[in-house]
């Protein structure tokens, strides 16, 4: 079974992140850039499927040159090879444009199963798997908390607020995963060494036959017009108890419409 995992490099959600004031896109130099956390679960699931079904796991990413760090993380966890689509013209692309690039790359790969995280921690648009499903004409089993693969048949438990939906489909298909689906493995030292020798194919928009004018900030379907930092925390209110502390507290909470 040929499995493609979609991986995105994002600014570390645990660090201070910023937007670039010149074009309101992510300032990549402002934070450590790491593999999107949800994608680690997708990689783990792909490796688990490979272990039970055989086949090959290919990592696919669209991003600047530095995104190779995220690719290497996935390869060191055990993926077999990677495709890195990188082109300056992609900078500032919206989800719709990016999905056209990823779909073009997937069309050049042989895949039975595409696995991706249900969302990324930067844009959190969370529509990529659905967009790809539409473009490629394959089913999308979304928000999986459990995936069972048996030959060409797929069963997914789709996580909901109250429980789960049972979904079934045949390959080829796209499965998006939540962080409830597994516990990603740590890359082993052997895996880290091996990853350095695994093939990474770099493709440009021209290689994919995608018109450079159809992507990028200038023709994006959505743009960030303005942004502002979170206001600093206020001083807070200090209640001094002079025998009426409880009344003052309740009065404050009532004024804030908390009680």
């Amino acid at each position, binding site marked *: 079974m040929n499995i493609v995992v979609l991986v995105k490099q994002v600014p570390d959600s645990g660090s201070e992140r910023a937007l670039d004031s010149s074009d309101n896109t992510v300032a990549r130099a402002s934070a450590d850039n790491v593999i999107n956390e949800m994608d680690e679960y997708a990689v783990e699931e792909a490796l688990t499927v490979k272990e039970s079904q055989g086949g090959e796991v290919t990592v696919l990413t669209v991003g600047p040159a530095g995104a190779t760090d995220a690719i*290497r*993380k996935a390869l060191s966890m055990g993926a077999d090879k990677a495709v890195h689509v990188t082109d300056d013209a992609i900078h500032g692309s919206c989800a719709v444009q990016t999905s056209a690039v990823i779909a073009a790359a997937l069309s050049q790969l042989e895949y039975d199963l595409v696995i991706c995280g249900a969302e990324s921690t930067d844009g959190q648009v969370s529509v990529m798997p659905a967009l790809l499903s539409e473009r490629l004409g394959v089913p999308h089993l979304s928000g999986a908390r459990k995936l069972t693969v048996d030959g060409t048949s797929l069963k997914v438990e789709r996580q909901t607020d109250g429980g789960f939906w049972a979904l079934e489909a045949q390959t080829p298909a796209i499965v998006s995963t939540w962080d409830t689906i597994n516990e990603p*493995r*740590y*890359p*082993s*030292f*052997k895996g*880290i060494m091996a990853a350095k020798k695994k093939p990474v194919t770099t493709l440009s928009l021209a290689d994919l036959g995608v018109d450079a004018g159809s992507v990028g900030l200038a023709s994006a379907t959505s743009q960030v017009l303005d942004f502002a930092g979170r206001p600093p925390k206020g001083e807070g209110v200090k209640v001094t108890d002079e025998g009426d502390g409880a009344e003052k507290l309740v009065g404050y909470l009532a004024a804030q419409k908390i009680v």
Partner: protein
Amino acid sequence: MTALTSSVPTDVFGADERDVIRQFVDEKVRPLAEELDLTERFPAEIYAEMGKIGLFGITVPEALGGAGASPLDYLHVMEALSYGYSSVADQCGLVEIVGSLLAAFASPEQQAAYLSPLLRAEKTCAYAMTEAGSGSDLGSISTRAVRDGSDWVLTGEKIYIHNAPVADFAVVLAVTDPVKGKRGGISVFIVDLDGQGVTRAYHEHKMGQRASQVGGLVFDEARIPGEALLGEEGRAFGYMMEVLAKGRLGIAGLSLGISRAALAAATTQALDRQQFGAPIAANQAIAFPLATLATELRAAVALCTDAARALIGGDAQAAVLCSMAKLFASEGCNRHVDAALQVFGGSGFIRGYEVERLYRDARITRIYEGTSEMQRLIISRSILPRRAA
């Protein structure tokens, strides 16, 4: 400079390996330390994960299933694991020493049966030297191995053996020729601990590093096959010399990890704890001991790094440097946990505070893998070669 990251460099390992180690320690080791200390249980889940990552056999060649890295990487790993919990680092250290012995001296058959599964965390090991009458003076051991046909018959009792209660096999020192004694009369055997005539005698309850399983092993005419002999008969001391320095470097690294954990706990407390309207860190009485701790820790890291590089380079002084590193780092970490505890005041005396556990965990570092006194003996002999110092 922050106490939250290791200042011990690596050699073969790069940023990716260091990231995995740090992540593993932060996510899997540190959160479990308090519970492991309380229950004294063997951390089987951590042990299995360590095998998967490749934390067993850091300096064992890749072809034999190890990480193929160097003593400096081993020092880094020991420091980093011990920052999480010293009992976990101790497990790594034990496998490193037994693994190094098996890598260097075991037959291919022995390596397939013991080394490979050990490094994959499918087997656990022990290293059985100490006896009631034989501690620092290893030449005085009395456990006997006597040939009987193609077998050996093993009789004797080992005490304070790390992992004895849980190990699948032990590397056991026994006298094979009482006349030659320590000059060619002591051999090493690989003994399955579930075999006939072998008893796990008791389980010690210790002051610190309580998740490290320590107990006794009794061999009552235990019949072991001829191929259980490691390497050649009578070569035990030579084999042990090969791994002794690395073992001491490992405990030096473990001591550094305890020091760093103490520094991290104390600096956090000094900044968080308010007295007289300000963080107690504002008082030089609190801040200066921490400055001393940080300085001594950095010096210890430098000495340990120096010793590791000497081992890598095959320096003739490597063993002495490893003794110096072990002495300096272990004595240091005992001062450091004391200084850190003082910052906590009464809280530092209460179970549940990390610094209270560190205070107990540190004490054994001045004793195992050669006491501070034995390290000073080794060092003094290197600088006073003509005298029986």
